[in-house]
């Protein structure tokens, strides 16, 4: 029984189509393919075919953590899928804003395969149903209001002509709720009416007092608000008062022709110059309309959970705004937490690198309790951390390949990442030649160097961590001052070019270097928390996660964790985005954002 079935009884021909649909399951992944791979799910081999747009999907697969902010976006995605559609949930999730899940399974590859079989049966039985239930999303309720394309300040609730320029008012949908945020990447940009009507979003631009209205024929008639001239009935023209108004024409090269009062023939001709006068101009000086496009939380080229609101001038980015819709709440939920629960809590903060955060929690607790661990377990822990670094870098390579349309690399990197996630020490030795072959072949791919060279340049003096910093020549690796790592022969890997190519190169070199480190550590054991007595003190620890150095401070009150404060690299990398992608072509901008390897999950608000 799928709630998103299509109207119609299951006749002969429709039965054939329903069985065809059960064999052709196109899936849209929430929160994203990178999270699915990080949790060890192999989507392709399970029979599901991931697609880029909800319009093409008939299965919505929800797995991994879905924060309240993401739920609203998930609901909008589900509303956009085409019937017959189904909802497939892995792992226990409370999805209030979505209808009941059609198929539920536990979060593992086995659960996925068994769920897909159940999904096939459900589709072939009930793709078409005589009675269907409608599904609606509060954010998509719209109210029609009428505005003028030349003067967006004029808004009416009923159709008519614009008082100022006589043009027909165009209908525009606006969220019926008061606040409306571009929640989701595939929402049809109803109120951004991109190419169809020419409006520069002056929504927040109030008419300051200095704007006054005069009649071209009778300059002595001056009013403060638009209307028609009492003498001749002509539409009054806006004119800045003599004092130059404090419009922030930031980079407007104001041709000093002032406000030409052209003579209007009968129809009150609306000159384009008035309209584009205060339009922000792009670098090439051509005043054109900018498009607001959300590249939202589930965009196939960006990490799951990251929302980029780009204002595009043609296909160059004029302005950008970044939101993390997947940021978690407080680390310590109840007033105090048992250490083992705290370690579990920290492990699932960032699904992309769970072991690194588990190690961070263990080290902080040991530092607080003053326990020091044997060299043997320390080496084994480093082996586990390095193995996760390789898996994380391979996951990033797969996402990078998906963004640049490099299908061969995406499939190879994804399969290797899945193998590395659960590889024992012996298996790592077996996998080593295939990883090195992948890296060598990647470095010889034509078009790659030209595609990534000097894109996403960062200024030298910015704060950055991990591979992004090492690509700029700054070595702030936490492993330098870790005696055991240095004993195992760790040396930082650096580049100078500070662009997407350098970051790619740093990550590839780190993979080869880490393989050597794991062999030196010759053991891979997931860190285990040991008992912490009834003590009350504070501890702190640093671990080099695959994305950079993470720093944790916590305070203990007789064996209970009271407060914890996590400082993750992605919080700093978020504000690198805007300066980096300013005036960049859209494809280059998305690739630059991708090269930072952001994990929106570790950003704690």
């Amino acid at each position, binding site marked *: 029984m799928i709630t998103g079935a299509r109207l119609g009884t299951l006749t002969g021909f429709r039965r054939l189509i329903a069985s065809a649909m059960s064999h052709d399951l196109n899936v849209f992944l929430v929160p994203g393919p990178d999270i699915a791979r990080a949790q060890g799910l192999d989507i392709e081999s399970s029979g599901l075919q991931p697609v880029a747009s909800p319009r093409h999907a008939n299965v919505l697969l929800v797995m991994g953590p879905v924060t309240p902010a993401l739920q609203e976006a998930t609901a909008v995605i589900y509303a956009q899928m085409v019937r017959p559609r189904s909802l497939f949930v892995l792992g226990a999730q409370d999805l209030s804003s979505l209808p009941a899940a059609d198929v539920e399974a536990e979060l593992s590859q086995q659960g996925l395969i068994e769920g897909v079989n159940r999904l096939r049966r459900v589709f072939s039985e009930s793709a078409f149903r005589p009675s269907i239930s409608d599904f609606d999303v509060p954010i998509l309720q719209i109210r029609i209001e009428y505005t003028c394309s030349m003067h967006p300040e004029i808004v009416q609730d009923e159709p008519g002509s614009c008082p100022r320029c006589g043009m027909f008012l165009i209908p525009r949908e606006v969220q019926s709720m008061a606040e409306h945020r571009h929640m989701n990447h595939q929402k049809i940009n109803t109120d951004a009416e991109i*190419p*169809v009507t020419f409006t520069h979003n002056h929504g927040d631009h109030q008419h300051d007092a200095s704007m006054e209205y005069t009649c071209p024929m009778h300059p002595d008639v001056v009013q403060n608000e638009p209307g028609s001239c009492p003498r001749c009935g002509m539409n009054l023209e806006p004119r800045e008062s003599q004092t130059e108004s404090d419009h922030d024409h930031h980079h407007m090269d104001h041709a000093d022709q002032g406000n030409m009062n052209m003579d209007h023939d009968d129809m009150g001709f*609306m000159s384009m110059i008035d309209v584009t006068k205060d339009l922000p101009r792009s670098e090439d000086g051509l005043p054109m309309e900018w498009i607001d496009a959300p590249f939202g939380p589930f965009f196939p080229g960006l990490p799951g959970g990251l929302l980029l609101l780009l204002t595009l001038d043609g296909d160059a980015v004029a302005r950008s705004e970044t939101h993390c819709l997947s940021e978690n709440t407080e680390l310590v939920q109840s007033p105090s937490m048992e250490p083992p629960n705290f370690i579990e809590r920290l492990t699932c903060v960032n699904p992309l690198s769970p072991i690194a955060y588990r190690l961070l929690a263990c080290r902080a607790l040991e530092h607080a309790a003053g326990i020091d661990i044997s060299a043997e377990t320390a080496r084994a822990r480093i082996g586990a951390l390095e193995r996760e670094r390789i898996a994380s870098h391979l996951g990033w390579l797969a996402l990078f390949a998906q963004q640049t349309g490099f299908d061969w690399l995406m499939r190879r990197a994804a399969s290797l990442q899945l193998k590395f996630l659960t590889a024992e020490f012996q298996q790592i030795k077996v996998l080593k030649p295939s990883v090195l072959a992948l890296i060598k072949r990647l470095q010889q791919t034509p078009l790659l160097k030209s595609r990534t060279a000097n894109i996403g340049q960062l200024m030298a003096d910015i704060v950055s961590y991990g591979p992004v910093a090492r690509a700029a020549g700054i070595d702030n690796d936490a492993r330098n001052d870790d005696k055991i790592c240095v004993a195992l022969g760790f040396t930082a890997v650096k580049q100078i070019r500070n662009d997407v190519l350098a970051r790619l190169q740093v990550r590839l070199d780190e993979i080869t270097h880490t393989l050597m480190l794991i062999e030196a550590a010759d053991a891979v054991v997931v860190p285990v928390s040991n008992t912490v007595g009834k003590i009350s003190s504070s501890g702190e620890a640093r671990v080099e996660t695959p994305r950079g150095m993470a720093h944790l401070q916590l305070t203990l009150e007789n064996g209970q964790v009271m407060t914890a404060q996590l400082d993750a690299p992605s919080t700093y990398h978020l504000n690198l985005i805007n300066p980096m992608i300013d005036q960049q072509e859209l494809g280059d901008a998305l690739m630059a954002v991708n090269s930072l390897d952001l994990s929106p999950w570790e950003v704690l608000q």
Partner: protein
Amino acid sequence: MTAQTFFIGFFGVAAVWFGIVVFRTFSMVRSALALLFSQTALGAMFLSMQVEFLGVLQIMMMATEMTIMAIFMVMFMMDPGGLGKMDMTHQKRLSLAVGIVSFVAAVAVAVFIDWGPLASTAPDAAQQTVDLGLELLGRSMLIFETAGITILTSMIAAIAVAIQPLKRNDKS
């Protein structure tokens, strides 16, 4: 020969109707593509008049030209989507009168002049192409080469005009 007449008439009417749509529609991209389809109908008319090479050439060239015109219209127009129903014309009555007068004059010329004997057949397509080739590189070689050179100079001139003026530091 009625099939050929029908096709010529049909494509002629289509070309004129699309030509009218070009100026009546409010959406700019629609008017650019209307012009495109009017030129394509013209190319089809050439084909039905057994002028094969020029018909195919017309169909090919006009498609690229008019799409490039479409992007310029979106760039320059205030309301490319045409939802504001903005009337961007002036002196409508005068231009309508001049248009009709010129149409009537051309039709009068076409109807009242005695054209003399009309040829019934035209050389077949391959022969036409060969004759055109020989003509291009034979008698009117000079015209053909000057046309090529003028296109080159007009490309360079257009780019020179359109390039952003260098920001002279001394604001003269």
